[in-house]
């Protein structure tokens, strides 16, 4: 199958993949009402993809904020504008770094594990067993993971941004000596709830969450049930998610600004 695809036009091949992915999304969405009876499963998945990703998200958020504070302080000190450090850290994190870095980490941490998990469930006949037990695997396995990713991404992104600002504050105020009041007042003066937090952070991370989850469950569900197939599928999840995130980030920024 893959050998035959190799001979086909690459463009048509990837278009077909996107089309199958879209149809799969429709299947998931139509299964979402039925998946509400498996709400426990959704909660369990939220624990795995969300709560278990907190450590990496918080650590990375802290360091991103710290390095932003450091870099911006030195650039802004050239113009004597170190008081703007707070607002620039916040804007950079809300609009770009928060959603994008969280999404990339999320794809690497949660996306791959979802793909591998579903792929292995297929390889070990667990998916078929569910079908045989008259349980729809789309409603029981796929939709809860999709929903969990959708819910977890914005929350993780908020935590990431909070930690980033904390990190930026740590470096700029506690270490480099920017005035605490200036740091916060400058930030509050320049950050807008609707433009930066709702449009920048929440919308972007929702879209990213949906895209990553869709790619992850799609790759897992359609992978050939072999160990090689699962390995390939996890790789494809990371690659496809990363490309999709960065491309969509540009599109969303262009539309939401």
């Amino acid at each position, binding site marked *: 199958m893959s050998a035959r695809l190799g001979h086909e036009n690459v463009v048509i091949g990837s278009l077909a993949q996107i089309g199958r992915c879209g149809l799969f999304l429709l299947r998931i969405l139509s299964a979402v009402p039925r998946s509400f009876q498996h709400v*426990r499963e959704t*909660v*369990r998945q*939220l*624990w795995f993809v*969300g*709560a278990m990703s*907190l450590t990496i998200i918080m650590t990375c958020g802290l360091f991103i904020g710290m390095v932003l504070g450091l870099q911006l302080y030195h650039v802004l*000190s050239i*113009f*004597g*504008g170190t008081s703007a450090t707070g607002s620039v850290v*916040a804007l950079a994190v*809300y609009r770009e770094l928060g959603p994008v870095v969280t999404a990339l980490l999320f794809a690497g941490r949660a996306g791959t594990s979802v793909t591998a998990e579903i792929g292995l469930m297929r390889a070990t006949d667990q998916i078929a067993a569910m079908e045989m037990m008259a349980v729809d695997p789309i409603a029981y396995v796929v939709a809860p993971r999709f929903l969990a990713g959708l*819910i*977890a991404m*914005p*929350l*993780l992104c*908020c*935590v990431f*941004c*909070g930690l980033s*600002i904390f990190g930026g504050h740590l470096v700029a105020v506690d270490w480099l000596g920017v005035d605490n009041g200036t740091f*916060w007042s400058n*930030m*509050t*003066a320049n*950050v*807008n*709830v*609707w433009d*930066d*937090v709702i449009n920048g*952070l*929440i919308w972007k991370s929702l879209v990213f969450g949906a895209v990553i989850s869709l790619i992850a469950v799609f790759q897992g569900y359609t992978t050939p049930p072999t160990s090689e197939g699962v390995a390939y599928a996890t790789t494809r999840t990371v690659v496809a998610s990363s490309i999709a995130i960065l491309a969509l980030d540009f599109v969303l920024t262009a539309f939401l600004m």
Partner: protein
Amino acid sequence: MSQRKSYAAGTGLFIVLGFAALVYLATQTTSVVNSHQGASYTVEAQFANVGQLKERAPVKVAGVRVGQVQSITLLPGKDVAQVRLSIDRKFDQVPADSTAVIYTSGLLGDQYVGLQFGNAKSYLADGGHLVLTKSTQPLEEMLGKFFGAGGTADAFGGSYKVNAHFTNVGTLSVGAPVRMAGVAIGSVSDVKADPVKLDATVTMLINGKYNQIPDDSAAAIFTSGLIGSQYVAIQPGGSPNSLKDGDQLVLTQSAMQLEDLIGKFLVNGSSSGNNAGGNGSSNQPAGKH
């Protein structure tokens, strides 16, 4: 079952943490007053120059935000900007003869519209006009007065070379313009340290058509704009002899620290701009950071 409960508790904790972070971000790092909600009324004002004023810039009374700029349009057929201000309904007691002024918040900050209350007993209503306005004072104009900068570099035909020694060239680099009365007359072709005199030698190429520059003219290193690049300014002297190729400018004034300038500017006010130019002497220590 206990396993299942721990999932639920952990997940609940995660959700609460996420939402707490969102609430924190939304309330502590943004200003809710920046968002434009609630009833408002619109008044119009005309300005000769709105400068960098943008839509949704704040409208303030005594520094307190009362509304925002709704739209900025050009009045048809005139070079006058029509600005519509949307003022929150709860601030409905703005005297009709108030003055609208465009201010800049801080040196590099955004511009906003400030309302200075008049004494009229009647108040502005929806669709009202603010007759008295003060336009923006472009920073460039102020600094232009202050520094005497402006203009662009000419094309170079024949040119001649002049040297000058400075104790400090700041960030002057090769290719920087050489200006007289703000007009570019040449460019810096070389900057290097003099191993004997222990100062900086700047070589300038000056356009051949400016061959009437007195040879006792002074060279000074200035900064164009607040955060712009540096250039060499030639201040003509009174000698009857003109500069020739290979001559040296003896009177020089080194680069000044921007902090010094701004410090003086802010302390003395713009009225004393005339003494600022000659004041930054070369042997003065650099300002502290």
